[in-house]
């Protein structure tokens, strides 16, 4: 930042400004410093989080008020996306109705953007990059240039995804899961369609994650400081370690599947297309012989480990913050470590619980039901350890801690509502309803996102040398908590009433009013929830404004930290200068004890950092 402001203050000659610019590019854009790359991930991913949110906002409008034009920006959207995508209101002629194809595109891209371009890059790319090397006492990642390459692969993956909105036919529209044959049939009249770009974008994102995973795991294995034994690693590092393995091993099969789907779309193969497939009343001109189920297996072989990629880093963050703010050691550190390793292994053998209704067979379903119940056990262990850690602590209720505390019950709700989905019998009813949407959003939105926000508030002082504003932070917290629940709680009700998750008109077609004779038609109250949810979603969006202001304002004008360890924490990242320079540590760091020595009996202060040498 300094380099640019410097250049604008003086009146530089041409050559001079060129020189300054080079410095800026190397330092902030094509940097190999893990902290700068972490920041790049953070900012890019937050932008994608916002884009993903806007997409779903528009969809929610259509669900609440089917066929009505969006209140603002309708004409602009029509100009950008065309009149096939953005239509006119039947009665008033007002421009700005989200057409079915656009609704489908938004749905697919909301999921894709949120999972692959927002949450994973935040949890793994941003926090993993910034915090992991600091916490293990490393000068940087093991392969700094590879690290830069990961970021740019991610960036271009994102660009491809965004560009896909503007090709003929629009962005991918077959769900974030891109099930074949639908994904091969939609927009097949265009040589390069949204689905093709989706696959290309995914291949870039997968490449980014794979390079990142290799880098993280190597860093953790090789670059731990002196004395930083495995069992002295902060829980956050363990979470990142397991996350790395999940990405490393679960993503390649999806890459293979992506290649095969690309061949189906471009070279007319039939990997996922069955014999005798009929499209629009005509038998498709293909060899056939493929298997649609095969795609689903590959997708969920990634998809399920991916949900743990989403949640484990957040758990790691929450662990750090809870221990720091209760001023007590994390309860059951070893249990936590073994649980997270268990989750890592088990998450590779539960994937087909997303496929109970595909007719893959009852024996297979039973197997996956069993493994699914098994994996919920270590998850419960982790949550229980966190709750017990609170017991009897004198808790500091600062903003990071509030978010970390809210994570616990929110993740709890998300996890518990997963159990009925894991049982074959109950899932037959609940599958593909709003109940599923409620379940996973409780885990990812008020769960993971709260964890990530907690992390931003917590590590901000280390990254910038300034605190974020507590008052704005608390406003952000309170309203986010209220609106998150107002958005997602009613979804369980809608789902149990039988509302399907992919209906363009919010269920109006199947309402009691329109089809009184149908069994299971949706009553007016269930449909009305659409409106309240949409309003709450708007509220949730507004509640992020204090955060955005706080983030940028505090970066330049927040309260300065007076020490390198403002939270009086115990882990190694707090021993560096603030903000940490390139290379991180001034002298070779070492860990002398475990990561959570708070309130140790006989110690002078209520925290004994890992980096504090033993008294001779």
């Amino acid at each position, binding site marked *: 930042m300094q380099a640019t402001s410097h250049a604008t203050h003086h009146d530089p000659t041409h050559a001079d400004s060129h020189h300054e610019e080079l410095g800026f590019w190397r330092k902030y854009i094509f940097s190999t410093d893990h902290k700068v790359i972490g920041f790049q991930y953070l900012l890019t991913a937050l932008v994608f989080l916002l884009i993903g949110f806007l997409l779903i906002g528009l969809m929610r409008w259509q669900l609440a008020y089917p066929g009505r034009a969006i209140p603002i920006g309708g004409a602009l959207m029509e100009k950008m996306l065309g009149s096939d995508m953005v239509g006119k209101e039947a009665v008033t002629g007002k421009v700005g109705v989200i057409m079915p194809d656009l609704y489908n595109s938004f749905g697919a891209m909301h999921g894709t953007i949120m999972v692959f371009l927002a949450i994973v890059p935040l949890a793994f790319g941003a926090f993993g990059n910034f915090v992991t090397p600091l916490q293990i006492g*490393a*000068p*940087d990642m*093991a*392969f*700094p240039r590879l690290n830069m390459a990961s970021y740019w692969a991610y960036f271009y993956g994102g660009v491809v995804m965004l560009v896909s909105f503007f090709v003929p036919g629009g962005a991918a529209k077959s769900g974030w899961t891109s099930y074949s044959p639908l994904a091969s049939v939609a927009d097949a009249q265009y040589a390069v369609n949204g689905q093709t770009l989706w696959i290309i974008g995914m291949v870039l994102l997968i490449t980014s994650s*794979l390079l990142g*995973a*290799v*880098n993280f*795991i*190597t860093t953790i*294995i*090789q*670059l731990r400081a002196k004395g930083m034994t495995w069992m002295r690693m902060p829980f956050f590092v363990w979470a990142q370690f397991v996350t790395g393995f999940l990405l*490393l*091993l*679960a*993503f*390649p*099969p999806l*890459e*293979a*599947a992506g*290649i*095969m789907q690309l*061949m189906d779309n471009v*070279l*007319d*193969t*039939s*990997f996922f297309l069955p*014999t005798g497939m009929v499209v629009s009343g005509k038998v498709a*001109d*293909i*060899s056939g*012989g*493929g*298997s649609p189920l*095969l795609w689903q297996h*590959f997708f969920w*072989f990634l998809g399920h480990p991916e949900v743990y990629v989403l949640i484990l880093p957040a758990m790691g963050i929450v662990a750090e913050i809870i221990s720091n703010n209760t001023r007590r050691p994390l309860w059951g550190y070893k249990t936590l470590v073994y649980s997270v390793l268990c989750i890592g292994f088990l998450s590779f053998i539960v994937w087909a619980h997303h496929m109970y209704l595909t007719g893959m067979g009852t024996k297979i379903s039973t197997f996956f039901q069993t493994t699914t119940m098994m994996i919920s056990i270590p998850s419960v262990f982790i949550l229980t350890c966190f709750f017990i850690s609170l017991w009897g602590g004198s808790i500091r209720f600062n903003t990071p801690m509030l978010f970390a505390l809210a994570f616990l019950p929110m993740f709890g709700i998300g996890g518990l509502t997963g159990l009925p989905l894991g049982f074959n019998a109950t899932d037959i009813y609940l599958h593909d309803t709003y109940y599923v949407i409620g379940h996973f959003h409780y885990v990812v939105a008020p769960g993971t996102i709260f964890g990530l926000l907690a992390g931003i508030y917590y590590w901000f002082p280390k990254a910038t040398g300034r605190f974020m504003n507590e008052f704005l932070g608390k406003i952000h917290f309170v309203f986010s908590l209220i609106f998150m629940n107002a958005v997602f709680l009613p979804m369980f009700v809608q789902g149990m009433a039988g509302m399907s998750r992919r209906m363009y008109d919010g269920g109006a077609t199947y309402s009691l009013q329109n089809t009184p004779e149908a069994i299971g038609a949706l009553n007016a109250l269930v449909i009305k929830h659409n409106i309240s949810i949409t309003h709450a979603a708007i509220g949730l969006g507004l509640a992020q404004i204090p955060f955005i202001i706080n983030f940028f304002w505090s970066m330049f004008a927040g309260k300065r930290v007076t020490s390198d360890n403002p939270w009086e924490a115990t882990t190694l990242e707090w021993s560096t200068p603030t903000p940490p320079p390139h*290379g*991180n*540590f001034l002298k*070779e760091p070492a860990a002398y004890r475990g990561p959570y020595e708070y309130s140790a009996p006989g110690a002078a202060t209520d925290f004994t950092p890992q980096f504090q040498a033993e008294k001779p």
Partner: protein
Amino acid sequence: MDIPYTSKPRPDTGLYNAKVGIWLFLASEVMLFGALFSSYILLRIGADVWPQGLLNIPIGTFNTAVLITSSVTVVMAWASLKMNNFPKFKLYMGITILCALAFLGIKSIEYKDKFTHYQVWLKDGTTLTGHIAGNPYFWNHNTLDKKKLDHIEFTSDGKHDAKAGDKGQSHPGGHAPAVKIERKDITRLSAYVPAHSTYFAIYFTLTALHALHVIGGSLVLAFFWGPGSKMWKTDPERFTNRIEIGGLFWHFVDLVWIFLFPVLYLL
């Protein structure tokens, strides 16, 4: 602070960074090819007919030998460096790269043969395989309509009605006479391209992905052989490590082929 263990092994793990990195990378590669092999199995189980005997086994065997040779020479190249013999390194690495090029050359000839080899399905339910007069590339039944052809001159290769297990009866004397097949008798026509069947789809996907690995690997090895070898003068230990890493990757590429060959050519 410099990043530690870039060329010296870390005492407790016994490995330098890049070696950990390459093993992790290879683990993900195993998953990548593993997924494709699983697809092969599932597609084959689900298929009504699984074509056999369509690939040229002698050529495949020869290519296998070429790759195995290159795997041996890449180890010799690394061992030469360990024994401080740079000219020998140049020699063995050179042979490795030549083997890679030979493999790719042979593979592309195989591909070319497939692109001009046709199967035609006739109205009466039979099918013929062979060549179209003029040896065109990549035709299918839609090409005939686009070119407004009402018939093709077809030279059967003697494998009538190629059904599973049925290798067909060869014509005495080898060459069958060219026959004229009317467009109206043809229900489907396809070269041996990915769209022909799930068999060729998976064959081309697996071998093309493998070929990409060969290309990538040989580019890296060629760099170490050429401009990259300057590092031998400045940092021999690191350079030797690089060759080791490159060699590990090369072995993996070789190993994949050793699975591919029997699965696609023999079984």
